[in-house]
């Protein structure tokens, strides 16, 4: 407990130190990350303790905000999220140290680190808060800090736009949370979570609260159709911030959803269906949009939408399972979702760091201008490839584990139709969606990996790329190692999520609780198989080396089908790679293409470009905003500058009030 509080204190109070050092100097660039790392390391151990269910505690200090108390606490659920947050943040801080000192404008480095530490501290506070007012404050602080971080390159127009959309979306979500907390607080007479959990709300109230929570937290988590801010804000931020935002910050939305679902009593089937629906929508739309992107960081951001969709599917399945009394299935759903939360945090931050390194090395993240980077930056390429394979859910990496649990859940629901009547429909939906999303994810990430790191450079800058400094490579290597180790040491993992899931599924009787555990040995099978295949691959590779060591090995140009003058620009680009698939789903992903027609006998100067647009933004939010602006422009006619009519307003108001109140 003391360590967690110390960690909070270091992060939040220490962050102000960053403001005190001279803004331009090197000191800010060292002090900032040092504080972040120190704060995170302090907190990781107790978080881990709590996560495995060993040390849970609650503490409450009186606080003078009306109905506020400085109640903090740690249980397995909080511990799980705190662990994820602190681990990724510490690594991102190390990465950011080098990243900012290379690419950032020196002037703003100290402010940036101040905000970074506040962000990490407030995320930690969000997961340990045990009072709604405190939670809200931390929640908003988190949004504020991340907003400032996104605005780091505020002189760019698109960054300003992104910052605005982000802020608007996050406030939109908070508005729903305000109502949610208000309702819960009024109902229970206190804003302490202990009071909330004593509530036994009736279905209508619980349902309304659940909807509010889904919208409020879903906005932060980036669930479709509340995701519009995410693909804007995450690419706009500096890469280590993108890593933290996409890797862990959006997970606080999942945390909030889980935490507040425990206050609402037994879930109803439609809760599960709602979440699953949002999850399926996010998963498919997210990965398809990602596939259509040409900007590496935007692509990664859309892929976050997809992964949050997978998490939401798992949660939805879990709720459905509880409501139908299938606790074993519910457990698989929740455990899969939580494990995916952890996994996504690891590989998404890895991938964003990789993108940052590419930006740092080649000066662009436009896919169609990159290529062949694995020769100049082998470590980054290797780490990125591990991350890409992991995010596709491929064994033996960690991404497989979460998806495997979800598959198990769906197959369990289908195979055990006798015992779990009514779940096979949900199982089928989960199965089909996961398979679709998984297949498309492979398409998406082979594209990134192939276009950025493999082949030949498509552009002069990409050709001159160089490997990033050690402080940037190290975090990526650590994360890649986590991907691999978590995947093949899976025996340890059940203890990771089981206590957290038990926090969510509160209430069932002892029999049901007993069902809340992983089927014996599942992970030892997958881990064993994964490790075996890995060893086999290594052995085969050695065999190949042995065979070739005695033969002639030549090198030549790539087989070019007889074409006389192959050039690197003839390579398949990201757009051409993904175009067939995207075209197939044109109903949900729109790509605008502009091309110049060729004419004449010797045409020259042809160009072609395509841009993927977000359907929701283009066809829902933008018109909505336009409508509102148009309406407000019309209403502004009321303030026409004519004094006479202004006074008429006064008189009319008077008459109206008189007529209303003195009838």
């Amino acid at each position: 407990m003391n360590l967690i509080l110390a960690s909070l204190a270091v992060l939040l109070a220490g962050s102000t130190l960053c403001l005190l050092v001279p803004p331009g100097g090197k000191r800010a660039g060292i002090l900032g990350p040092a504080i972040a790392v120190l704060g995170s390391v302090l907190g990781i151990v107790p978080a881990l303790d709590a996560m495995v269910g060993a040390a849970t505690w609650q503490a409450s200090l009186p606080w003078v905000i009306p109905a506020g108390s400085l109640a903090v606490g740690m249980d397995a659920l909080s511990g799980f999220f705190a662990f994820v947050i602190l681990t990724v943040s510490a690594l991102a801080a190390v990465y950011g140290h080098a990243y900012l000192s290379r690419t950032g404008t020196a002037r703003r480095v100290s402010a940036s680190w101040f905000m970074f530490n506040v962000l990490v501290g407030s995320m930690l506070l969000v997961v340990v808060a045990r009072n709604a007012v405190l939670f809200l404050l931390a929640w908003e602080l988190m949004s504020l800090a991340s907003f400032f971080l996104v605005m780091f390159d505020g002189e760019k127009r698109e960054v300003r736009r992104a910052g605005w959309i982000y802020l608007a979306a996050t406030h939109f979500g908070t508005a729903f949370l305000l109502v949610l907390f208000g309702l819960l607080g009024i109902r229970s007479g206190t804003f302490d979570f202990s009071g909330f959990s004593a509530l036994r709300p009736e279905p209508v109230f619980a349902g309304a609260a659940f909807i509010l929570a889904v919208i409020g937290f879903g906005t932060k988590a980036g669930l479709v159709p509340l995701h519009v801010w995410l693909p804007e804000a995450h690419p706009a931020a500096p890469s280590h911030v993108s890593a933290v935002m996409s890797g862990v910050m959006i997970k606080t939305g999942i945390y909030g959803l889980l935490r507040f679902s425990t206050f609402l009593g037994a879930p109803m089937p439609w809760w599960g269906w709602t979440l699953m629906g949002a999850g399926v929508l996010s998963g498919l739309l997210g990965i398809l949009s990602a596939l259509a992107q040409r900007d590496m960081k935007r692509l990664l951001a859309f892929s976050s939408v997809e992964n949050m969709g997978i998490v939401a599917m798992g949660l939805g399945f879990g709720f459905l399972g509880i409501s139908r009394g299938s606790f074993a299935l519910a457990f698989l759903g929740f455990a899969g979702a939580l494990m995916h939360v952890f996994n996504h945090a690891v590989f998404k931050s890895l991938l964003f760091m990789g993108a940052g390194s590419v930006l740092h090395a080649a000066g662009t993240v436009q896919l169609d201008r990159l290529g062949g980077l694995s020769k100049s930056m082998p470590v980054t390429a290797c780490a990125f490839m591990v991350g890409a394979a992991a995010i596709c859910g491929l064994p033996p990496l960690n991404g497989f584990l979460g998806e495997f649990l979800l598959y198990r859940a769906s197959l369990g629901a289908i195979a055990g139709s006798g015992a779990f009547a009514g779940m096979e429909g949900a199982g089928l939906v989960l199965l089909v969606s996961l398979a679709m999303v998984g297949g498309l994810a492979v398409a998406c990430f082979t594209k990134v990996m192939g276009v950025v790191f493999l082949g030949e450079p498509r552009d002069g800058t990409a050709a001159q790329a160089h490997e990033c400094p050690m402080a940037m490579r190290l975090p990526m290597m650590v994360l890649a190692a986590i991907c691999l180790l978590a995947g093949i040491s899976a025996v340890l993992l059940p203890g990771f999520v089981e206590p957290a899931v038990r926090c969510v599924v509160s209430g069932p009787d002892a029999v049901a609780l007993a069902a809340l555990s992983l089927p014996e040995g599942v992970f030892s099978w997958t881990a064993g198989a994964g490790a075996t295949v890995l060893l086999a691959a290594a052995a085969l590779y050695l065999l190949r080396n042995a065979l070739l060591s005695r033969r002639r090995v030549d090198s030549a140009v790539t087989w070019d089908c007889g074409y006389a003058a192959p050039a690197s620009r003839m390579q398949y680009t990201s757009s051409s790679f993904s175009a067939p698939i995207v075209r197939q789903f044109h109903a949900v992903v729109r790509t605008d293409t502009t091309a110049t027609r060729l004419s004449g006998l010797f045409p020259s100067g042809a160009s072609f470009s395509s841009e993927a647009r977000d359907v929701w933004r283009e066809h829902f939010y933008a018109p909505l905003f336009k409508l509102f602006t148009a309406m407000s422009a019309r209403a502004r006619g009321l303030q026409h500058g004519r004094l006479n009519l202004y006074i008429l307003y006064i008189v009319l108001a008077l008459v109206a009030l008189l007529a209303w109140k003195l009838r």
Partner: protein
Amino acid sequence: MVLLLVAPAVAAGIVLLLPSARAIMRFCAMGTITTATVAACCAWRTFAGGSLQAGEWFRMDMLSAWHLVLMAGVFSAVSLYAVGYFSKELESGAFSRGKAARYAALWFGAMDAMTVVLLTDNLGVMWVGIEATTLLTAFMILTHSSPASLEAMWKYLLMCSVGVALAFIGVILAAASAESAGLTGAQVLSWTHLLDAAGSLSSAHVKMAFIFAVVGYGTKAGLAPMHSWLPDAHSQAPAPVSAMFSAFMLNAALYCVLRSLALVEAVTGSDGWGREVLLVLGLVSVLLAAVFIVGQRDIKRLLAYSSVEHIGLIAVGIGLGGAGAAAALLHAMNHSVAKTLSFMSAGRIGQAYGTNDMRRISGALHAEPLWGTGLLLGIMMLAGMAPFGIFLSEFLILKSALEGGRYLLAGALLAGLVAVFVGVMRHAIGVSWGAHEGIVRNVGAGWLDRFLVAGAILVSLVLGIWPCSRLWHVLEMASALTGGMP
């Protein structure tokens, strides 16, 4: 307390004798702070020991003490700020000794009039005070004589005069209601006596009086749809005047409404007859402000509409009663802090860029780090970002609305707040970041300016994170004076 009433008048006289504009502005600041300190002491005594009475006419209770604190804070900060602001104007020749003397005299006059409004126990005197405020401050708008400022002043003058004239009808009707209760002489206009005799007042008169008072004082307070003067006056007045208008004068007018509300609620049996009116007007204000903020181009007009929004919120909070009313009073303080900061910063940024048109201001954070930060954070506070004070008070108001089962109201309010947020932040981002083209006159920032900006941010943070329990206690007692607990 008497000192409070006399000191500004004396100071106004002294001002006319001082030799230079700089001396006048310095004296203005010192005088204001001295008076404010006295006011704060008086208020403190009231918080600690209950109401103070001074003769038959003057009285200070929790509600007036609370507003007095607001006033002391706003006037002190703004007068300090004015020193720097006008010294810049002096350099450019837009300001002179004559203007300074007029400004300072009117400043003290307005301060005196508002003090009278807050401290008097008499409806009539209160009305006189408000009317005097209008007349005195009208010329403050005209510090920089220009067609636009003249237009603004004319609109301000006529609208507020008409509005306040309507309020006088309310005063007359209130006095008439006392007839049946057998009050005589000065008693018929004394809040204390009227409230004591609430049971026997003529309710028809009191109700009508309340409506006239709401519309009349509401005009001056900037409640929609009577707010139309407000954006004009705020945008054309010099920044210190706008800050004072927005951060306190509106509250002073609203204070009069609160007093009337207490009376009508006492007469109608605290069943929310009068509070409903405030709820409706408040909600209309919030929604209307939202509409006007979205497409706004002038930064000071933007802030003016934000004042409409926040006065509306305060009205809604008061209209909800109970904890909502206490939250509304807290909101008043939060708003004053944030609005002072915003207007101060906007004024200096306007000086730097030579325009208030937000399409021509960008990169303020870079060009003017102190004022840019002040403006950005001020607008964020106003938009309701945590962890600043307004977030908390908005949350409490909202909670109070939900508690009363007014879900529709809460929904509409939230929609309005979100719309305001979205609109206002778009402008704030555009102003704060980006490249600043053209020549930006460096307005600089002295230690005093740093102190003001940092102080305002700190106060708002403290109010948002750690408002001391004593404060909340005071607020509860003060809000009880606005019409009882539901």
